[in-house]
């Protein structure tokens, strides 16, 4: 096993990897931008190195600097987390050349599966069902018309290098194809530096189901069940759960085995996820591969009892998988909410700023993976995710109840969060009946919210008055600072800071 690794990330995922390393006796090197000097991932690391100014391009995306720090500190491996450099094949290759282990697949496997078009070709080689459509970038609008004609409208235009909904367009009619093609190309060019787009059949009201894979460097590959991530807003996952309410053992096995075939055909190693769309007739279609650890990995950890980051580290150190497919036990149900600094009542505007008050939930079955604390200033420079709140319980119904209980305990003050949105979703009959697809949340948000019961405003007004009373006339004994002579010494030294 490694003695020391560098963690090329920030926020909750950097802290989560540090915890795994501490448990395995591995020293950690953190990196940080100027916006993150006071972040928890710096506090909890063994070593910490400044990368540069706040913008990611000048800090967390500086692979060259990160490799230099790894060399300088003697770190034997780099964990990229998710986002930033995690799916950058060039960086993975630079690590390989520098003799520093990139904790993820090889750059070669990443190249095969990282591009959506190339991954679709690999899917065909692995005899895996995929959406009808092209497996190469479209070279002209004429080709686009031809493919669309063949697979029939409605169709989806997608960026080959895409992610997060960028460069993606649903096209319902031939008349709209040309405009969508051009705008998707230019958006893809801006977002990913590649204008390659392709066409696929639009699956109507699909569920998003994905398979978690682990592959060691000795040819063993297992699937750890599925996650359902159908609750999305603008193609971004909002709630994830495991297992899916509509995936039974037979379908799970078919999807799992298809995902394993694809991974093995591409020489894939370490943790990865194969994403599928599932239609209302339980047909599944290959969507894409995420060649890294995912945000939503904790729901799989809770239902399998495994620690995916531990396993990533063991695999990267060259060890064989410590269990077989038959030994994977799924038990219970887990649901994750992505808690964001954003204001659902105001167009989901981001809400960076200082967290002036923080009460975090806990107790049975609740896991919170977060990188925040009371007093922390959430920077405006990065993704607005504050934490991941995850509930585990024997059944889906109880996991929902538990998550709602934890949300009631959770208070974030000073900035806005989407906690109220989760309360709404988790209480919605459609969600509770698992009647969800990737359009579910947009439909819910288009409905008017029910008026909340308002009789608590009297009590809130009283509380506000009493808070004010305490502030105006503090009478509770505050915690006494140690009478340790500081003021005296400071005065004597004429200290002014």
């Amino acid at each position: 096993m490694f003695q020391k690794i560098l963690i090329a990330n920030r926020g909750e995922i950097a802290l989560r990897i540090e915890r795994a390393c501490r448990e395995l006796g591995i020293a950690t090197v953190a990196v940080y931008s100027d916006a993150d000097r006071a972040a928890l991932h710096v506090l909890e690391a063994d070593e910490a190195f400044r990368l540069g100014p706040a913008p990611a391009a000048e800090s967390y995306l500086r692979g060259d600097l990160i490799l230099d720090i790894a060399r300088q500190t003697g770190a034997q491996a780099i964990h990229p987390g998710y986002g930033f450099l995690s799916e950058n094949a060039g960086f993975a290759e630079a690590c390989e050349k520098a003799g520093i282990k990139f904790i993820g697949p090889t750059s070669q496997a990443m190249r095969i599966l990282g591009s959506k078009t190339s991954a679709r070709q690999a899917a065909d080689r692995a005899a895996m069902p995929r959406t009808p459509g092209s497996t190469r970038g479209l070279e002209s609008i004429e080709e686009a018309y031809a493919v669309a004609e063949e697979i029939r409208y409605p169709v989806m235009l997608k960026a080959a290098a895409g992610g997060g909904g960028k460069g993606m367009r649903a096209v319902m009619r031939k008349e709209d194809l040309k405009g969508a093609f051009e705008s998707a190309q230019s958006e893809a060019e801006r977002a990913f530096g590649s204008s390659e787009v392709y066409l696929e059949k639009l699956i109507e009201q699909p569920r998003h189901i994905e398979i978690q894979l682990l592959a060691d460097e000795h040819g063993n590959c297992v699937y750890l069940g599925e996650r359902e991530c159908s609750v999305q807003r603008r193609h971004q996952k909002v709630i994830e759960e495991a297992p899916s309410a509509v995936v039974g053992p037979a379908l799970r096995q078919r999807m799992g085995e298809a995902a394993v075939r694809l991974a093995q055909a591409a020489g894939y190693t370490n943790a990865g996820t194969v994403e599928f769309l599932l239609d209302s007739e339980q047909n599944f279609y290959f969507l894409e591969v995420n060649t890294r650890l995912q945000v939503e990995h904790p729901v799989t950890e809770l239902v399998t009892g495994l620690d995916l980051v531990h396993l990533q580290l063991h695999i990267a150190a060259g060890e064989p998988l410590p269990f077989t497919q038959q030994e994977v036990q799924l038990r219970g149900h887990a649901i994750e909410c992505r808690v964001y600094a954003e204001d659902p009542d105001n167009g989901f505007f981001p809400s960076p700023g200082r967290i002036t008050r923080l009460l975090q939930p806990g107790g049975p079955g609740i896991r919170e993976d977060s990188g925040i604390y009371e007093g922390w200033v959430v920077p405006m420079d990065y993704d607005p995710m504050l934490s991941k709140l995850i509930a585990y319980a024997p059944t889906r119904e109880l996991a929902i109840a538990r998550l709602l209980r934890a949300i009631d305990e959770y208070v974030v003050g000073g900035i806005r969060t989407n906690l109220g949105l989760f309360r709404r979703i988790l209480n919605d009959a459609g969600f509770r009946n698992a009647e969800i697809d990737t359009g579910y949340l947009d439909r819910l948000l288009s409905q008017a919210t029910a008026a909340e019961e308002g009789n608590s405003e009297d009590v809130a007004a009283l509380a506000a008055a009493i808070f004010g009373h305490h502030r105006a006339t503090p009478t509770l004994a505050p915690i006494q600072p140690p009478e340790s002579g500081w003021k005296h010494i400071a005065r004597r030294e004429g200290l002014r800071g």
Partner: protein
Amino acid sequence: MKLQLEMAGGLRTIELERGEDPHQYRATVDGLEVAVEAHLLRPGVLSLIIDNRAYRAVLEDHAEEPTVHLGGQRHTYRIADPRSLKGRRAHAQGSDGPRPIKASMPGRVVRVLAQRGDTVEANQGVVVIEAMKMQNELKSPKAGVVAEVRVVAGGTVAAGDVLAVVE
């Protein structure tokens, strides 16, 4: 102590008198009497018992919008000084006169869509701010003429900063 709070449900008048036990209050809410027992557990966290009902009230320290979290709901309030209340309300509701466009969050100015002297409609975008990888268009609160633009593309703004003024 007597005070008025502007809340979502309207104006609330609270009278508060502390009892002999410093945790006991006699209070009235809009004239209705209640006995309240209140313990401040730590700054910003109150344990209230009213008629044996228990409540957790958490104060969100926020200069612009002090807010009490209670039972999963957010209650934003504003202390109404009785002497200045009428004036303030009238001011806030008027649509005449210059109106500012304020940044609702800190961020970077990506684009300025209207220049000084431009005529804008109500809800027309004037400035685009980027924060946390998202772009947000800040809109004119009224139809009128842009009297002032205080930011330039590439600059940084804090929450509450006035970006432009529409007359």
